[in-house]
């Protein structure tokens, strides 16, 4: 049962959030310029590390904001959360 620090609302129970997968995946500016493999890389391929992971969450039952979180997937320890567009906190890069 994660206790997630929403950057807007503070610590809330996991049940208020939805996970949005790996963070920092940008939509290609010009999809037509991509090969099929590069497009597949964008839509399907994900880093799935055991350890430090940057992921997106949305505070679905709270403020409805998306944000990023750095978490250790081997322990579930949360290193920190940060707003969309911000850089990961120190110790989570």
């Amino acid at each position, binding site marked *: 049962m994660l206790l997630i620090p929403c950057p807007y609302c503070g610590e809330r129970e996991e049940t208020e959030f939805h996970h949005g997968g790996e963070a920092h995946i940008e939509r290609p500016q010009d999809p037509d310029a991509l090969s099929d493999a590069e497009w597949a890389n964008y839509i399907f391929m994900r880093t799935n590390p055991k350890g430090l992971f940057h992921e997106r969450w949305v505070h679905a039952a709270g403020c409805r904001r998306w944000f990023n979180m750095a978490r250790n997937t*081997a322990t579930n320890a949360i290193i920190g959360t940060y707003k969309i567009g911000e850089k990961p906190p120190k110790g989570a890069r």
Partner: protein
Amino acid sequence: MAEVEKPVKKYSLFSLARNALSFHQNWEKAWRSPEPKKHYNAIIIGGGGHGLATAYYLAKEHGLTNIAVIEKGWLGGGNTGRNTTIIRSNYLWDESAAIYDKALQLYEGLSQDLNYNIMLSQRGVLNLAHNLHDVRELKRRVHAIRLNGIDSEYLSPAQIKEMIPIIDISPSIRYPVMGASLQRRGGVARHDAVAWGFARAADARGVDIIQQCEVTGILREGGRVTGVETTRGTIHAPKVGIVTAGHTSVLAAMAGIRLPITSYPLQAMVTEPVKPILNSVVMSNAVHCYVSQSDKGELVLGAGIDGYNSYTQRGSLHIVEEQLAAVCMLFPIFSRLRIMRKWGGIVDTCPDASPIISKTPVEGLYINGGWGTGGFKATPGSGWAFAHTMARDEPHALNAPYALDRFTSGALIAEHGAAAVAH
């Protein structure tokens, strides 16, 4: 091909009786604990059911016996030993039906093949429908499965009640039971026995099963694999198969390969044992409830996956609570039974909820993973097809559709394809 046949101490009623006389002092080891050699013809990373089955069929079907299974913990200690032991082949798409039914057919003769009783119990698997959308999708599956030559029936609520008198089919419950598919050949098997049986039979054919040995690197030279680095030294081999459910991405990353796989916690649990009360496997995707009763009398229950990547083998309590509320809805009398133990596994899931059984861009490196919640039931079929792929360096027709490049071409095998209900 010359098979290296080691003498096997066969299990039999006679051997049991004879050993009883000597107070069971003279049983042979089920498998050896060899030191790793410097070189093998093939290495399987991962000593779970799929890895051991791969090794067994490599030896049995392809005569490849100078091979090693490398396991970082204890054989069968991963998802093989953590699942709800359900076996079925009632899948929608032709590609899925083919490989899962291959697995079921192998299961049906596995105890004799391995000389190890895996306690296959073909007591029937029911998948419940709770709304009109479910009914439509379930019938679609029932028909597709039947036309693929696999046993499959549709049951009305009254027929369900006849099979399972303790289920509540009243229309007034929150999500009433509106129908079910039934695969009579489906059922459960003793999960540990599957791993142990394959291990013992593979060992008997000369396979080295090396436990407590963690792979730390995958060696490559000029685009092809040459072996692995392990906590017990470097081991060379021209062929390496990654069969590490839960950790497929971690191992693939060692070879520079990125996969469409995400690892999630999946929880399961058992209750205290009670006298027989449920004689079929009941599954409901709509309300996330999987339940059967084991030969010891425990109810074995499975939950849905947790919603975030994790390798902790611990899920969250609310997932279990939701699932047990669903169980109490369908089986109100179970509210007073008690959960005795619950645990978590790590499941690798692909976007189309189908596995990857494939060659990779690295020559000689093969991947078998991404089984999601469906791995146990596929174990022998998966190992059989993967052995073929590793031995011949080309997929069998059974696993050709499960190639990694399907994510580039778009030819997914969308087992969870059904979209949300919408009107």
